């Protein structure tokens, strides 16, 4: 296995406080790494550091080349991000939005080539978005929108795909659709995937490996069974959970109520 993405002592500070504190990580080509951790753990900041949207100490390297020395354009050809809260320009059509993903490949003067349009057409097909092509992005439902944003990231044809909590606003069926889609594309296109994840059961099911961040520090790393430990979750999430077998070799994380419900009898 070759290392696609490596982080070495990566720290990020905002106004003196450390959001990330010397994070080390290596992700193999074609691997799916899930990043979990409580709110404010630094998951989003970690993804932003990889895309170059936020300054950092330490080094991040793609295929051994440090991102700090790369041009923005070249970095965008290597790493694509599906943001948690994408900004939707009113009046922009789906096809134009997905075509924005070609930006790092398109010359500003000449505009997109037929090849760029072919790439977009193929992706719209693959994600069953052809019928939405002319729709205004602000009129899409949550599930449609998430596919459109993934489509834009795929249009970058970057070997590394970052997903920032890609399923937060979706119902349980759409969550599975989007993650199965990511997994299928990962296999078809040998993508390296790094996703920040909220839902621990889903985190146990999809990624190959998990990293738990808390307070900007890596506190646990390994497969689902190792990282999703009731004691770890209690100490970093302040949550009581039970880990159950799903009957198919996987695990599920079930939240437990730590005390009996309050009685309603006073009403």
């Amino acid at each position, binding site marked *: 296995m070759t290392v696609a993405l490596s982080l070495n002592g990566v720290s990020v500070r905002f106004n003196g406080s450390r959001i990330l504190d010397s994070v080390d990580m290596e992700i193999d080509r074609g691997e799916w790494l899930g990043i979990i951790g409580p709110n404010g753990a630094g998951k989003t900041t970690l993804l932003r550091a990889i895309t170059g949207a936020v300054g950092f100490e330490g080094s991040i390297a793609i295929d051994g080349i440090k991102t700090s020395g790369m041009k923005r354009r070249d970095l965008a*050809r290597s790493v694509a991000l599906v943001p948690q809260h994408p*900004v939707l320009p009113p009046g922009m*059509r789906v096809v134009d939005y997905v075509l924005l993903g070609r930006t790092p490949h398109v010359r500003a003067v000449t505009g997109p080539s037929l090849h760029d349009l072919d790439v977009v057409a193929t992706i719209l097909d693959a994600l069953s978005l052809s019928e939405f092509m002319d729709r205004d992005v602000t009129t899409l439902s949550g599930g449609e929108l998430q596919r459109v944003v993934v489509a834009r990231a795929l249009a970058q044809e970057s070997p590394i795909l970052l997903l920032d909590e890609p399923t937060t606003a979706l119902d349980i069926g759409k969550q599975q659709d989007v993650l199965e889609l990511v997994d299928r594309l990962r296999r078809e296109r040998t993508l390296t995937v790094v996703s920040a994840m909220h839902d621990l059961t889903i985190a146990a099911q999809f990624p190959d490996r998990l990293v738990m961040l808390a307070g900007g520090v890596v506190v646990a790393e390994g497969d689902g069974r190792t990282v999703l430990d009731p004691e770890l979750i209690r100490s970093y999430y302040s949550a009581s959970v039970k880990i159950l077998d799903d009957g198919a070799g996987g695990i599920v994380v079930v939240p437990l109520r730590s005390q009996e419900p309050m009685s309603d009898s006073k009403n």
Partner: protein
Amino acid sequence: MTGEEIRPSRLHWWWLVGALVALLGAGLLAILLGAVDLDARSVLLSVLDRVPFVDVDSGLNDRQEAILWELRMPRVALGGIVGAMLAVAGGSYQGSFRNPLADPYLLGAAAGAGLGATIAFVYGGVLPSGPIDTLPLLAFVGGVGGVAVTYAIGYSAKAGRTPVTLILAGVAVAAFLTAVQTYLQQRNAETLREVYGWILGRLSTVGWGEVWLVLPYVVVSTIVILFGARRLDVLSVGDDEAVTLGVDPSRVRLVMVLAATLGTAAVVAVSGLIGFVGIIIPHAVRIVFGSSYRVVLPLSVVFGATFLILADLLARTVAAPAEIPIGVVTAFFGAPFFAIVLRSSRGLGS
């Protein structure tokens, strides 16, 4: 599906041709109508007569020839240039700041130019004169200077170089410069009328000199802005996402604002502060033709020129022989027109 089957937004040639026909029509109308009406055939022949190696008799007498070539033509040309520049600069500002209310005067260009012009009116007599008149020179320097100070403050802000920081810095700079300008104006009440007239905008005292003075700035600024259209489309998904698409938002904003400011300051120097064009033209184009800046910016150039030529025609004919300030016309006729476009649109945010 293949690339040939998808239709990304683009500027259709027939839109551009239609817009250019409208511009030509407006220009011709503005050349023919006025205190002395000229007939179209004679004007056409007179134009032909100026073509090298062509010699025809236009039938116009010397006075009519002078009105055509020394009054009407330069005025229409200047109106078109100013309108085109203000409209495309407005679109550039709106895209750079992702703010529909942004106009070319947003970052202190208007306040700075106003102060420069007021200084020229008040101290014009005692200032040394150079190759360029004091008024356009100081208005230009003031406009560019206002935006430069805004940028310096916005960039040094601890909160970071966000668009909002820049806009707020612009508010502070504009307020300060306007305070100085108002003070100067009040202390020198005899210039009040001139200053007020300049602030409302006018195309009246023009010959070809003003046209040649501003044309290079406008051409360069417009070309830079048009080439940046694709970048503005990328910026519409926000600074953070623009970075992940390989675009440096601060640099795009700097280039677009710089180009828009240079062009705006140049036209303001000769025409005063003509309002409203930079807001309504890009928005009207957006509502009718679509929101991509690759459509909005080129069409804003043409429709901005058309709009201001027609506004100036009204300004000098409605109350003839008196002239209404063109800024009054752009707002008086532009606002209801814009309201109609707005009403019949599906809405910007939906």
